């Protein structure tokens, strides 16, 4: 069964006059949002990541031999871009990077036209990062190609949530198929600039479906009350808000720190010293309130602000493991987009 949550109707009592949704042009192997993945999709992606990771390089190389993958990046990126590129190349694919700084995007070419151009040049899959929430839908509808969302504005970063999930399962030593109760009893605190964070949204929309309790923590300007109202319909866990970081830490097995996104603050003034006093993850605080918690960070880190070096590099940190899992998960996603013919029942689900 598709896990996509039932869309609330646009006007509850007007249903009779609205038509059935038109057939979408969105390729079914696209990944635009974690909400479009069923639980079995997630299971398959994780399983595939493991299989490809264990494969000898010479065999892995044949999976997508000479297939064409375009990376379209409208925002700077180190981890995501490099790991998608390494993932595609490790399976034999040819990759091309198009960035806003060195392309006709600078001359004002639209996303749609850029996508159609890449398709005409033979791209079979496009990995998109955009500063605009929802941009992957524009590209998916206009090209019909499988699109992988590598981060769209403040919206989502689905591959990050999947690699975080893989990291969490490894750290908690949970093996075997993932179910709605796999993360029962597990509490993850995500702390920092939740409002501007696509990583926070993707994790909050994904992890409660496996039973996790997600605590969001941060000051009101960076964490509006509405954040707790996005709990997925099929959640077996929950999303909660706790503004006292220490209290959140006391309840947490996992702690994910986020950077303050200066580029998206748009005039919001923050007292950084006060912020550090309340929300910084440092060795003393963690030793007192969450001595056994796993420390995560999607990067880039601002050492000395939201997290100290001592903690980022310490034994509780899973930060490097997150990066390593990025390649495995992204190999699975690129392979899923290009490698298999999807069954008819899966097609058209979006």
């Amino acid at each position, binding site marked *: 069964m598709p896990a996509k949550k039932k869309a609330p109707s646009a006007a509850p009592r*007007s249903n*009779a*006059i609205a038509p059935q949704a038109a057939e979408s042009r969105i390729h079914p192997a696209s990944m635009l949002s974690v909400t479009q993945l069923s639980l079995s999709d997630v299971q398959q992606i994780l399983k595939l990541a493991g299989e490809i990771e264990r494969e000898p390089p010479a065999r892995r190389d044949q999976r997508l031999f000479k297939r064409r993958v375009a990376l379209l990046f409208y925002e700077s990126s180190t981890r995501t871009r490099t790991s998608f590129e390494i993932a595609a190349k490790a399976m034999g694919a040819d990759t091309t990077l198009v960035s806003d700084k060195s392309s006709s995007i600078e001359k004002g070419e639209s996303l*749609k036209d850029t996508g159609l151009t890449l398709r005409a040049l033979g791209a079979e899959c496009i990995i998109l990062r955009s500063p605009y929430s*929802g*941009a992957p839908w524009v590209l998916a509808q206009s090209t019909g190609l499988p699109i992988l969302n590598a981060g*769209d504005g403040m919206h989502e970063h689905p591959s990050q949530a999947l690699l975080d999930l893989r990291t969490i399962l490894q750290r908690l030593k949970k093996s075997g198929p993932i179910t709605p109760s796999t993360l029962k009893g597990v509490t993850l605190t995500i702390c920092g600039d939740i409002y501007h964070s696509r990583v926070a949204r993707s994790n909050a929309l994904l992890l409660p479906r496996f039973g996790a309790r997600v605590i969001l923590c941060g000051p009101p300007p960076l964490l509006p009350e*509405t954040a707790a109202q*996005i709990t997925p319909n099929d959640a077996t866990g929950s999303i909660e808000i706790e503004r006292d970081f220490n209290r959140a830490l006391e309840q947490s097995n996992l702690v994910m720190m986020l950077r303050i996104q200066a580029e998206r603050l748009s005039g919001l003034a923050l007292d950084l010293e006060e912020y550090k006093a309340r929300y910084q993850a440092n060795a003393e605080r963690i030793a007192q309130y969450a001595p056994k918690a796993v420390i995560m960070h999607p990067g880039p880190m601002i050492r000395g602000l939201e997290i100290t070096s001592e903690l980022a590099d310490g034994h509780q940190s899973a930060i490097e493991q997150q990066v390593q899992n990025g390649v495995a998960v992204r190999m699975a996603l690129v392979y899923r987009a290009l490698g298999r013919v999807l069954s008819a029942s899966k097609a058209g689900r979006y």
Partner: protein
Amino acid sequence: MKPILIRNGHFIDPSAAIDAPRDLLLNEGKVAAVDKPGRIKYAGAEVIDAKGLVFAPGLVDIHVHLRDPGQGYKETIATGTAAAAAGGFTSVCAMPNTVPVNDSPEITRWMLSPERNAAIRVFPIGAATRGSMGEALTEYGSLHAAGVVAVTDDGKPILGDRIMREALIAAARAGLPVIQHAEDTRLTGGSSMNAGPVAFRLGLRGMPVEAESSLVERDIRLLAEVRDARAHLHIAHLSTKAALDAVRKARRNGLRVTCEVAPHHFVLNEEAVGDYDTHAKMNPPLRAEVDREAMIEGILDGSVDAIATDHAPHAAHEKEQEFERAPNGITGLESALGLAIAVLHARHGMPLNRVVSLLSTQPASVLGLKGRGTLAVGSPADVVLFDPAKKWVFRAAASRSRSRNTPFDGWTLQGRVHTTISEGRVVFQAGN
């Protein structure tokens, strides 16, 4: 121009409280006679058999964007008024945010020139301030003389207290209403939909309800301050319960405040944004369900003075963009009557004569369009004939507008326009 005799139909004229079988004779562009069925004899008249149809004063839309002058790739006065005629409208009031802004009698007269090939009557609305920059008032007297029926800086709300106060006083002196697009833009920077959980989930910055209600409250306060001027404030496309409550309260205090609601604000809520559908992007945005219900309630209880479409055509390439980059607005002229009948009449039981009043008589009265919204003998022969029971599928591709940006493509609407007559000329006739 051949005389037209409409027979066998059901006549609704809210201006005269008529809702009964009647015949209607139009001659020389005016209403010549209204009488009981069979009473009017007129040799040589073209007869329209209105059996099964309702005929009523042509619809009046006091809020449209015709994009002319300056943006003919979106719409022109010719195409926009053709779309209006197809939607049953015989009068439209054109907002001044054209290129250049309509802030002068010259541009007003240019819009009214026969060379524009308008299918129906266009009533220009003038800019309230020069270039709609919110700094210096335009000349309301000469704008009025040139044909302007109201002033507004629509889309660029008048934020300064002093300039808004001056505008209210000057407009009252010139006999014009001031129309406000109520949005405190200091609260909506970078926002592209309604604030709330849906916006949060989609990662879009949201426009809070207070951005609308606080400016309506401010305007009402200014109106009370200049009470002696007897100014008339009209709130454009009102979309929130809080703002509607402010209007109700001001009226109880004897202030002259009117308001309009757009069909999309009583038919859709913010969930229609779905997966970033830019056809659900407009300003004010689609609101929460509680606000949509409040719009229905305000329409049913008479708090809302008019339905106005905010017809805002945009080219496909402009809407096929990232949600935050796409321009605000949807077309509305050809779907308004069908939506109003389907939702207000069929679903909520509002009598048809009240639907007609909200789309014709009341908006004409709000902007003081003399002779419009009525079919009293001697008034302009503006008539819409429609089948109120007919269900039909609205197709954007069949639109007369130059643009196709509507969220209602494929919707089953109720109430189809059969014929539209503007000043005695048939300007639209439905195909089969």
